[in-house]
């Protein structure tokens, strides 16, 4: 998995590429911890280029959202589609997060 971090005025955008499996999830955790340490509180996770996610990836995203909730921040998702969308739907994770079709829509919502 590759993680691209882009800081916008309203939020930080984490764009994920490739496969978010049990080996890749800790890498997400580290990047997320860095962002929290830098004071970022609004994080958009963009799934446009993610082709695969397993429960380890879901846990990493949930853990980040829980940390942010404690500090009035939030996690927003964009471009959820295909097999990744299905995993979010089946696990009920689609109900936990605000989800936008496109990253720009997520940014505009803030």
């Amino acid at each position, binding site marked *: 998995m590759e993680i691209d971090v882009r800081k916008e005025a309203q939020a930080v955008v984490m764009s994920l590429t490739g496969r978010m*499996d*049990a*080996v890749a999830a800790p890498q997400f955790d580290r990047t997320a911890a860095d962002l929290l340490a830098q004071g970022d509180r609004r994080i958009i996770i963009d799934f446009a280029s993610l*082709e*695969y996610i*397993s*429960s*380890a990836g*879901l*846990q990493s995203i*949930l*853990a980040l*959202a*829980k940390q942010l*909730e404690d500090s009035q921040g939030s996690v927003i998702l964009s471009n959820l589609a295909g*097999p990744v969308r299905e*995993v979010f739907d*089946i*696990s*009920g994770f689609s*109900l*936990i*997060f605000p989800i936008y079709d496109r990253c720009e829509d997520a940014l505009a919502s803030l």
Partner: protein
Amino acid sequence: MSFFRVIMPATIDHLGDFIASLSRWLQQQGLAAEKIGRVQLAVEEALVNIFRYAYRGKPGEVEIRGGIVEDNRFVIEILDSGAPFNVCSLPQPDVKSGLRERKLGGLGVFLIRNMVDELVYRREGDRNVLTMIVAKSNGRFSSSRQKVRAGA
């Protein structure tokens, strides 16, 4: 009749090797890319649990077998020599509650159930054997998947 087998050390480092090797066989056998993705998810969840809970980080091996029955059903078996555990005995996790109430974890086996048409556990000698069955054709797959989902 094509038969597949891979045996490797039960460590997270080899997770990708297990998945790549099995996926190559599934692809050769003509399973659709979308279904290979579902098998990959089910197998990853099972393997990670074996590394983490069955062997608890101790050295061991995992064997994955693949076969095709009735020209249409892929049978994938995952074997480990770790602590006995019936994956099929787990209760349904919470998949309804919101951010605050949601607990971390507990989704792996639930995802396995939702990715395959049938899931059977048995103990064979000193090994755990988890059998996953996935139909190749779309019709059967969708209908039996519905069934499993409702019962999961």
